[in-house]
């Protein structure tokens, strides 16, 4: 039976951000929080799976989202925050396919860059990447 390895997908997505060398600290889940700014906070959201049985083979599809929040200092202007957000979005163009065991992940829509919001001494700008994972 086909299975989707969520940890593997999380690792592949994080690796893509890491390898891009954006010059920004990556704040990963289950790692001690870092106060660095600018930094990227990464959350990988997976949802329930949809299965389609076709002629004895099983195809599993899962909608997913990668939320990368660009965190910068307050008062330095929006430009640097939005430049970083643009760089993150450019790493995940619509239609991009990344291989996983037994299948692939596809970026299903252009990444959406939020207008950002203020939180104490931080400006936070979320980038949403919508994905679908398929295992054949």
């Amino acid at each position, binding site marked *: 039976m086909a299975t989707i390895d969520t940890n593997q997908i999380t690792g592949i997505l994080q690796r893509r951000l890491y390898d891009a060398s954006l010059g920004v600290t990556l704040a990963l889940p289950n790692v001690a929080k870092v106060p660095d700014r600018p930094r990227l906070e990464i959350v990988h*959201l997976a949802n329930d799976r949809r299965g389609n049985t076709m002629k004895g083979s099983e195809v599993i599809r899962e909608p997913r989202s990668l939320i990368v929040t660009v965190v910068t200092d307050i008062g330095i202007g929006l430009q640097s925050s939005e430049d970083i957000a643009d760089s993150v979005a450019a790493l995940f163009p619509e239609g991009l396919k990344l291989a996983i065991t037994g299948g692939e992940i596809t970026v299903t829509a252009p990444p959406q860059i939020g207008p950002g*919001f203020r939180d104490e001494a931080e400006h936070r700008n979320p980038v949403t990447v919508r994905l679908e994972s398929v295992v054949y």
Partner: protein
Amino acid sequence: MAIGDHKTFTAQVDAWVIKSDASIDTVLKRSIFDVMDEATETVIGKMRGGAGGLVNRGKIPKDLSNLAGSLVSTLQGGMAQGGEDSYSLVIGGINAKNDPVMQFSWGGTAADYAVHVHYGTEHMDGYFWVELAAQKWKSYVEKNVEFVKRQV
């Protein structure tokens, strides 16, 4: 789902359904009920002793203020809530024959902290209830297209 600007989720409805307005309406209504059922689920907020966002992702924390009750729906481009310091979280619509667009937003002046609770902050994990509900839009539409086909 979006903050500030209203981004749309589009699910393709197959050609057979588009032949009939009644079929489109049925798919649209059932899918919206499904997704809103998902998106409006609440959980006890941290201020009242509930667990945080990480273990309650996909639900709206109901605390001492107006977040859960700040939901506003608009049809065909009606005015959404907004303001200089307010943000809206939106689930967009479906583009079928009549191009019906429904938007749902939380936040606005009633709960301008919606965006903080949704995406999280340095001190709080995000709840992501809009994103997680919206992810299911396509599968709800597919399910309801099959429902309509079975009714004929």
